């Protein structure tokens, strides 16, 4: 706590580090609240149509591959752990550990985005199940849709939700990776100390939030109607 009043650590508008930290934390949480409602619009539409077109959504969900969804979930949980430990290292002033954990977090996040785009989405493209861009389900996909008696239109609607929801999520991941990289540079230069790690903590909150969104997206998109 000592030294908190020494100039640069506390911006001019604040009285002390305590106030600065509390403000930053409150601001970040409010920002996350807006994020909840940002995704909320999507969840609202999703819930509505899932209720209206259960067969279409079930069939659509069965076109996705559970193994991807589960793998992403594990990756994100791991990255959340590394992030939490990173914040902890910052709190304790362990620069090396902080750098290591940030690197791990970035790698996990980047891997997530890479796998999603390169393998899952590209795979969807090859299977002709990308609405608007490449939409002509055939073979196994078509068989599944017919088996469940779903209307192709409703399946397309589901796939649209799938791409938009995971797309917006991936966008958040990309932004997150960007922020982490910036933090990494700062951490490398030794900008953080037990007196001064607000940015790491706030970025951590954001990262965990993105993880939470995925925790919901996984069952909502990949596990509809079971896989039995």
């Amino acid at each position, binding site marked *: 706590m000592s030294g908190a009043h020494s100039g640069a650590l506390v911006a001019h508008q604040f009285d002390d580090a305590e106030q600065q930290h509390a*403000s930053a934390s*409150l601001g970040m949480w*409010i920002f996350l*609240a807006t994020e909840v409602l940002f995704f909320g619009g*999507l969840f609202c539409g999703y819930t509505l149509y899932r209720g209206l077109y259960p067969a279409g959504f079930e069939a659509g969900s069965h076109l996705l591959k559970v193994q991807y969804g589960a793998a992403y979930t594990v990756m994100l949980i791991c990255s959340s752990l590394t992030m939490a430990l990173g914040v902890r290292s910052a709190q304790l002033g362990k620069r090396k550990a902080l750098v290591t954990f940030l690197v791990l977090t970035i790698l996990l996040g980047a891997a997530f985005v890479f796998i999603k785009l390169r393998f899952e989405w590209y795979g969807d493209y090859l299977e002709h199940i990308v609405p*608007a861009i490449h939409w002509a389900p055939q073979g196994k996909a078509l068989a599944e849709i017919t088996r469940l008696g779903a*209307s192709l*239109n409703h399946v*397309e*609607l589901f796939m649209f939700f799938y791409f938009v929801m995971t797309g917006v999520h991936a966008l958040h991941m990309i932004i997150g990776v960007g922020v982490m990289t910036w933090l990494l540079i700062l951490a490398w230069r030794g900008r953080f100390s037990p007196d001064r790690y607000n940015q790491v903590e706030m970025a951590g909150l954001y990262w965990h939030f993105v993880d939470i969104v995925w925790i919901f997206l996984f069952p909502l998109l990949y596990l509809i109607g079971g896989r039995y």
Partner: protein
Amino acid sequence: MGTAALEVPSISHVNYLNASYGWRSWLFTVDHKRIAWLYLVAITFFFFVGGAAATLMRLNLIEPQGALVEPATYNKLFTVHGLIMVFFFLAPAVPAVLGNFLIPLMIGARDVAFPRLNLLSWYIFMLAGSVFLYSVISGGVDTGWTFYTPLSTTYANGNVMSAATGIFISGFSSILTGLNFIVTIHKMRAPGLTWFRLPLFIWSMYAASVIFVLAMPVIAITLALLVLERFFHVGIFDPALGGDPILFQHLFWFFGHPEVYILILPSMGVISELVAAFSRKRVFGYSFVAFSSVAIAVISFLVWGHHMFVSGQSIYAGLVFSALSFAVAIPSAVKVFNWTATLHQGSVSFDAPMLYALGFIGLFTMGGLTGLFLASLATDIHVHDTYFIVAHFHYIMVGGAVMGYMGGLHYWWPKMTGRLYPEGWARLSAAIIFVGFNLTFGPQFILGYLGMPRRYAVYPAEFQVLNVMSSAGASILAVGYLIPLIYLLWSARYGPLAGPNPWGAKGLEWTTPSPPPTENFEEVPIVTEEAYAYAKET
């Protein structure tokens, strides 16, 4: 010696205006007071653009077959008018100009909690405005400010995508401003300034900020979905896929109704300040007025379906929304009665800001009471989407919110510039605005009741008389708005010096010099008394 220019007294103390010079010192400033000026310039520009569109509309409606423009152009005019006035003028007007300037001053802080974020908000706002203006210049949009699907996604030919993108971006500016204010009000209050010692302006800014933060993200994602659907020709509102266009309306109005309270709440806060200062009395029923702001903010999120009574929404949902819409009227009623009661046994002066305040109370009451016609399921069916609606919301937004903004601008102008505006001109233009306003929008109530639909470029001849009256009123109104533009500009340079507290008002902002120094206060004020402690005893 002896020339006119030298008679202008100059401001000698170091303040936020003369602390540094040059365009960089303005465009890269993080001082909340300078950022308020940046906003002021921007929204004034937008106001006159929106007003010019309104002028052209009113000119066109002088003749039933359209006196001026093609229907296609008319449709673009009201779309641009509505979007600019709502998103680029009124939503930022009181919050981003007066709020930015005053919140730190009123709570005894050196700045807002996140000054750089504050500047960022302005840049985002300007980016949004530029994108929107681009869409207007390069052909315009013609969807109405409500962007209803599938018109906007499939059938409209205008630049829907760039316009929606502009609004989308502006949402983030509002979110960041709201966030900044909430944190500032929570964390930056001067010692001794407890919640119930806060000026009521702060309470209503707080309530409005909460709405910013919770409503804006929903419109952002909704517009994003709209743009995607228009781009890919596939989307969640598309009836061909089994999508439901009414879902769009739900998402739009979930934001849209709270948005209209974003427009009015800050002005209500201004009115509380004005009524107290110009009656030299504490606002009657302080805590009721304070809590009614919070009540409005919360209930405003529960009433959106009242815009959809004839849209095919279920009648049961309609009943719920109708009941809740009546509920949201109560806190507004409480405010109106308390302001009126404040005059009782006061020392009422009729300076221009007070004229605006009294105008606000009267016109807001009329606008609000006609809102009750719309909240009633049966009567709304008849007047929905007619000029009755247009009259309702202009009474609240122009007669109410804009009057409040004008009143506040005059009241704090001496604080912002250090100089007094010419009182006589100000009273005159307030009176002109009041008369012109009623002549413009009063006849529209009757038009609407008679059945004239809104957004009509041409109309049956039997509605002409009332339309001509309305257009005549609009020209008076235009004069009323141009006069202040001129004399305020003049007074910023040549007005007499104001001194720290020209009105003899209470409040921390009046304890520091006009214009205030960059750090606002020489030393952190310590608050020991209630707000509006005018009377001798307290």
